């Protein structure tokens, strides 16, 4: 970034709530259904219908707001936001204008080892619109269709203050919000399905200036990479305009994924006066302070607190703690494994190493795997009590992953128990010394390294089941004794 300008970015993050039913009707919230099957007269905006508030959506919103350190408004109301678009069935969206559900919060996020804070201006609840489908169904490529399955799905809008100073900060903050919403389990934040998206605004100002420059806006993005590229492009484009003494025009710009460039979007979709006014079909609602406290008490430990606790309580490195708290499910898995096995570092190593590898290969999330924390702690225990070696354990885990059987079962079935019986190992050791007189003599002659070969031969003969330490000891005794 050019040294003479400071970049100022603000984000409006939109998250669809994962309530069972829609915000104002009883239709199921379900992604991927056939077009217009998750609809009813209410979410289709038929004449005469009325919205009725889904109380679960309010509870979900409060959970999110508390997770984002917001204050909850004691009195809140809905408003109508008026604009025409074919995917908006009523010709207005029921949203919140001057009395949002929550306000005045903040999110701390990590970037390059530094903790940064973004203030949240407000959070409001609104209904989502339908979706235009551009498909050639009737043989006329100029026709578009509307799918109202998404219409009236509860949508949370989280508006940040313009506290972000670079595209990288914007993405880090956006990721942090996603993590928190997933943690409080109010949204599945599925970016591909469009249930987690954002609008970004960006402006430049001379370094040291307190006044905000003219901003441009990017709408409806559901990819971290696209937002990053688009913001970086806008940053350069605005700097170029300012360098040439020009003026940035306040407008919404379109981002073209293929060219990596943004373009002006001057159309009638742009000039909006939303003519907000209070929604007369819904009564303003009051949120009881006791109810807020009840929700707060039931809130899970958030990622930042959890990371801190993992480092302090379990003594694992910060790097591990960050990796393990990437999702709530992974953190839960680690927490339980560490507790059951009393070996936090071992648990962390297994989860970050072998288990993550297996999950990646299978393309599934930890919560969908057959392996449980009980399995993993049992595996760690088997190593510790020398039933199996670490090497054998590495071969046991994929079987547990595959079958869901306990490690003990697999060790028994495959006869993988480590041979720790000195007499059983002793005869094999004797045999190996006899069969390998050369290396045995080398060791006796002071070539310490030669013992490695002999250990390997014993392990080979026992198909890895011999306790390696015991093998080592016995060999030394026999050769020097």
């Amino acid at each position: 970034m050019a040294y003479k300008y400071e970049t100022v970015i603000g984000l409006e993050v939109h998250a669809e709530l994962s309530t069972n039913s829609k915000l104002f009707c009883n239709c199921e919230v379900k992604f991927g259904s056939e077009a217009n099957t998750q609809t009813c007269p209410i979410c289709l905006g038929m004449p005469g219908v009325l919205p009725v508030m889904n109380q679960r959506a309010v509870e979900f919103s409060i959970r999110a707001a508390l997770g984002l350190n917001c204050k909850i408004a004691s009195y809140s109301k809905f408003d109508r936001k008026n604009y025409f678009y074919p995917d908006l069935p009523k010709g207005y969206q029921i949203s919140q204008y001057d009395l949002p559900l929550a306000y005045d919060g903040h999110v701390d996020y990590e970037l390059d080892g530094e903790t940064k804070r973004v203030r949240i201006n407000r959070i409001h609840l609104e209904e989502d619109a339908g979706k235009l489908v551009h498909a050639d169904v009737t043989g006329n490529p100029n026709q578009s269709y509307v799918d109202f399955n998404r219409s009236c799905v509860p949508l949370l809008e989280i508006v940040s203050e313009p506290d972000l100073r670079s595209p990288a900060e914007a993405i880090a903050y956006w990721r942090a919000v996603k993590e928190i919403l997933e943690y409080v389990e109010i949204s599945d934040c599925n970016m591909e399905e469009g249930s987690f998206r954002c609008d970004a605004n960006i402006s430049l100002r001379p370094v040291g200036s307190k006044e905000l420059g003219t901003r441009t806006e990017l709408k409806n993005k559901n990819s971290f990479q696209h937002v990053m590229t688009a913001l970086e492009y806008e940053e350069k484009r605005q700097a170029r305009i300012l360098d040439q003494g020009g003026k940035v025009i306040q407008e919404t710009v379109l981002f073209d994924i293929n060219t990596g460039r943004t373009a002006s979007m001057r159309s009638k979709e742009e000039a909006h006066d939303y003519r907000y006014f209070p929604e007369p079909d819904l009564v303003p609602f009051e949120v009881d302070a006791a109810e807020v406290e009840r929700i707060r008490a039931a809130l899970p430990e958030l990622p930042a607190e959890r990371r801190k606790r993992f480092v302090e309580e379990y003594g694992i490195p910060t790097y591990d703690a960050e990796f393990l708290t990437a999702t709530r499910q992974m953190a839960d898995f680690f927490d339980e494994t560490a507790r059951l096995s009393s070996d936090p570092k071992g648990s962390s190593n297994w989860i970050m190493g072998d288990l993550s590898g297996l999950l990646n290969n299978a393309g599934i999330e930890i919560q969908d795997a057959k392996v449980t924390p009980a399995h993993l702690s049992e595996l760690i225990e088997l190593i510790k009590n020398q039933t199996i070696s670490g090497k054998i354990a590495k071969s046991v885990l994929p079987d547990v992953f595959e079958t869901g059987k306990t490690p003990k079962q697999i060790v028994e079935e495959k006869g993988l128990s480590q041979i720790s019986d000195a007499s059983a190992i002793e005869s094999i050791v004797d045999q190996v010394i006899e069969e390998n007189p050369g290396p045995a003599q080398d060791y006796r002659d002071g070539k310490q390294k030669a013992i490695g070969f002999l250990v390997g031969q014993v392990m080979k003969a026992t198909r890895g089941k011999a306790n390696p330490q015991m093998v080592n000891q016995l060999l030394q005794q026999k050769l020097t004794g």
Partner: protein
Amino acid sequence: MAAHAASELWQLSAAEASRLLADREISSVELTDACLERIAAVDDRISAYITVTADLARQQATDADRRIAAGDASPLTGVPMQIKDLLCTNGIATTCASRMLAEYIPVYDATAVARLREHGAVLLGKGNMDEFGMGSSTENSAFFPTRNPWDTGRVPGGSSGGSAAAVSAGAAPFALGTDTGGSIRQPASFCGVTGLKPTYGRVSRYGLVAYASSLDQVGPIARDAADCALILQSIAGHDSRDATSLPDAVPDYSAALTGDISGLRLGVPSEYFAEGMDAGVRAAVTAAIDQLAALGAEIREVSLPTTQYALACYYIIAPSECSANLARYDGVKYGYSHQGDGDMWEAMERTRQHGFGPEVKRRIMLGAFALSSGYYDAYYHKAQQVRTLIRQDFAHVFEEVDALAAPVSPVVAFPIGERTDDPVRMYLVDVYTLPVNMAGLPAMSVPCGFSNGLPVGLQLIGPHLSEDRLLNIAHTYQQATEWHRERPGI
């Protein structure tokens, strides 16, 4: 039939019909056929119906007779009715008297309609009205104007003009109307029938095609107060589909008709007898108040100083809400849709240009303007503040009196075409009914005499949820007078 005064079945009130049906003196099929014949005889002259559902009516009448025979009847079982075409009827065209919805068939019943159907009332058809409820004369119907049965050269009032005209002409024993600024009371007054606008929230608005959501309310238009009590009993009560519907228990309205109003403190607001009022209206309403005094009411003159602001306030709030409520008619999902070569935006614009009539477009534009950025505070916000004052005015007055008596309209039914070129003059017809909607109060229109041969209505206004009291005042008055029994000679 000797025991009954009415010589024709179509002349029966709902309560009379209910009694005869219960006593098995008449069948619902006979009664329904009589009403359908009456519609056939008079509707070409008054045009009260947009749709007549004759086959469905006979089917429902047959079902009702079976229910009555099985001893499974409620008071309205087998009684025919008309429903204003602003209320959704499952499987039956609900046009809102608009080209936009000329062929629209709802997939569900409005709650009020569903409740009447459950009670076994028989649907004769759908009533004509001003397009989307916007008007005071039923001249704004996109299809045809309704004519006043007392003088077919005159309007029946509006917007529920088809409903009031049908009940007046005997083309329906009762009807369900809607009232946003006087749309039940004013046509009831012009047609000489009894109408009740309940407290906002008393009857569910679910399935009432929204005009102005914070003002709209469903209510009965009938021959007398006793019928209104019967009908309100069936449709009132909380509805989980309407967040603004009131949870309060529904009293027994018929039991409230004691015929005794002694000691009732009845207020007469001086602002409701302003200059420009027809002398005949003033005389009839004054005589009615004297009559109520003679029946035991204590008359007190009161003042509602904000009355003069109600009209201006209404014509900001109602159009504002309507500008949003009618935004859904874009030709995408249902109803009229302009087909042309243009793009999506042009299709939506042309749909609205051709689908809506001039008064609807006028109100949408008024509302869009009042809500637009830079004008919101001066118009919409200010109007809401005035609305609070109007509400407070009523609240203060109801500390001193139990109910108010006033004219429904300063005028009687006017000639068709007389006011269509002058919207403001048309709007003034509702000057005494609008304040009630602004305050969400219940009010009735009760026939109380004639001016130049045309009916005059007495308006009774009560505090929040005082329908039982208003019905009793009207009933007591109707026990002592014959105005509500006067029928047009059509």
